[in-house]
């Protein structure tokens, strides 16, 4: 009798809580289209659960989860040591991959390829014209004009820039020393465009321009991206498959903070790719919310991955999904671990 009562009571409170369960999140703009899809699909499975996600930018996401105003944050870049010191209780959970493509505008010329040295040379402002011998050597058979190269980069702080500069710093010691890695950096050359559309505008209008945009944007706007030479020496076109391949061979750490997948090993790996993350507290304080959130994340890295490719995001490779499973299982609610249903 007591047991039944307890169960009834438990169900009752669960139903009551579920009735009004709203999970708040804020952060990165890049994965927003996919997250919205996830939230609405997950809501169909769990009609009592609603998500409210504000795409205010990765910086905002980190600030809000640190201050505890949201239940989860989202960021395109991992938190720095300094940021993590303020909120040591944060776990990074990679959700999908994005990659950065190089687009250019040279009337009448198609099929240019770039290696790391040329790309960093152009963005450092050292290779100034298209007929530079270094570019010509990499693209035999293409007659290059004497046009000046106009470099276009993002002017707004962005995860795309973070991934791009991370790659640059890995392939060019000079870049690492003079520019560094970040969401906003001091660009040695070129013009800044606001957002992917701003950079695209610059590239489309200026003959001789070259810039970088995120893959999803390039696919949706049918921009031709240049194949880039990866660490194995193969020229790889940016695609969903080659972005996922970039993460397949990378040894990611358990807290996922050491999980840069730029310039990755593997013949099919596209060199400029990166994760985007959801940030959650390692110990969830609110039982109902914590359970719902962790179950949702479990669903997102399993069933949710199928929705990534149609929206031009690269799904996580299976070794990474395994790691995420381990990480999710370690999260606790009020000090107790949560058991995930097999899915």
């Amino acid at each position, binding site marked *: 009798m007591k047991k039944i009562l307890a169960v009834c009571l438990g169900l009752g409170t669960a139903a009551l809580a579920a009735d009004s369960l709203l999970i708040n999140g804020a952060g990165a703009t890049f994965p927003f289209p996919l997250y919205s899809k996830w939230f609405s699909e997950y809501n169909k499975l769990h009609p009592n659960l609603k998500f409210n996600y504000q795409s205010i930018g990765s910086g*905002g996401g980190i600030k809000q989860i640190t201050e505890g105003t949201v239940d989860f944050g989202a960021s395109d870049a991992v938190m720095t040591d300094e940021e993590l010191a303020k909120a040591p209780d944060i776990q990074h959970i990679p959700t999908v991959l994005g990659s950065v493509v190089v687009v250019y505008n040279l009337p009448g010329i198609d099929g240019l390829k770039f290696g790391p040295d040329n790309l960093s040379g152009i963005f450092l402002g050292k290779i100034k014209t298209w007929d530079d011998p270094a570019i010509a050597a990499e693209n035999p058979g293409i007659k290059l004009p004497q046009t000046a190269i106009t470099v276009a980069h993002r002017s*707004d702080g962005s995860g795309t820039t973070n991934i791009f500069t991370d790659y640059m710093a890995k392939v060019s010691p000079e870049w690492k020393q003079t520019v560094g890695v970040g969401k906003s950096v001091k660009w040695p050359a070129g013009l*800044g465009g606001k957002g992917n559309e701003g950079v695209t505008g610059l590239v489309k*209008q200026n003959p001789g321009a070259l810039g970088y945009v995120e893959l999803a944007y390039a696919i949706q706007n049918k921009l031709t991206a240049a194949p880039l030479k990866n660490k194995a020496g193969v020229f790889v076109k940016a695609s969903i498959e080659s972005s996922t391949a970039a993460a397949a061979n990378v040894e990611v750490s358990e807290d996922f903070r050491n999980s840069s997948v730029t310039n990755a090993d593997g013949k099919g790996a596209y060199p400029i790719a990166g994760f985007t993350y959801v940030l959650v507290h390692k110990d969830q304080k609110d039982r109902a919310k914590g359970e719902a959130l962790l179950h949702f994340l479990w669903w997102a890295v399993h069933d949710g991955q199928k929705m990534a490719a149609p929206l031009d995001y690269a799904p996580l490779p299976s070794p990474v999904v395994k790691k995420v499973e381990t990480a999710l299982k370690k999260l606790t609610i009020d000090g107790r671990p949560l058991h995930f249903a097999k899915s």
Partner: protein
Amino acid sequence: MRKADLLVDQGDMIRERTANGRPNFFTRVNVGDRTYALLLTALGGAVLIVAGLIVFVLWQSAHTALATHPLEFIKGMDWDPVRHSFGALAFIYGTLVTSALSIIVAVPVALGLAIFLVEIAPSGMRPLVSFPLELLAGIPSVVYGLWGLFVMVPWLRERLEPFLGAVFGFLPLFQGPPLGLGYLAGGLILAVMILPTIASVSIEVLKKVPVSLKEGSLALGATRWEMVRTASLPYSRAGIMGAIILGLGRALGETMAVTMVIGNSPEIHASLFSPGYSLPSVIANEFAEATDATHTGALAALALILFGVTVLLNSIARLLVRAVGRGPARA
């Protein structure tokens, strides 16, 4: 005594009379009046409190984050978020140059338009023009920015800048490769944006010029242009200055449209063809993704500088209004 002096004297007398005759709300016994006075005082004070809070919050954020001396920050040319090295000069320069350019371009056009509509155009035409003018003032700035990026900038690069370079290329202002993006594009897009504001306020001001004044001027044998120059403009110059201040305020604070066409590179060049950056643009661009305290602090400091620049320019403009508003009309 000249007619205009007489007018001014009369004005002063009227002002004095109302000043003496005004009932002092605070000494009155009527409860309703006192409550009303208190309420209005509170509302007026709220504006000051909000402005004060903004400055305080910005100061707090900027002050704790900036290790460098404020003057060093203002004079600094470097802007490197990765290395925490921040300087504001390039942004201040860009803001001032684009705003000045926009005023130089927009004011004559807006004034000409206003004079045409009030004095010359048939009266039926006024609503036909003023309606679209108000519509223009209401267009979101990001739309202006996109139009600037996709329509105006290519035109600048292919037509206007090569032309200016060929004709005025001996001036440092018009040298260098025509990129399209830069101070010139920023200034022109701002001019387009503030033109409706300046024009529509000026129209209202010019409409208020007493007919007797204009008729008197015409009766003395003035041509239409002389009438505008000697009667309408002197009478309404304070109002027109006010219109220009409104426009300047919008130009100084404009963010989206400018950032899309200015090129966003924190450098200082003499040439208007070069890319630059402006204070509001860099704040809008970098704030959302700025995470460490030094970076957000530096952005807050930029906001504080923008606040200061706006206050400074507005005060100068106000002094100017007072100066031109006081003096007798030149006949």
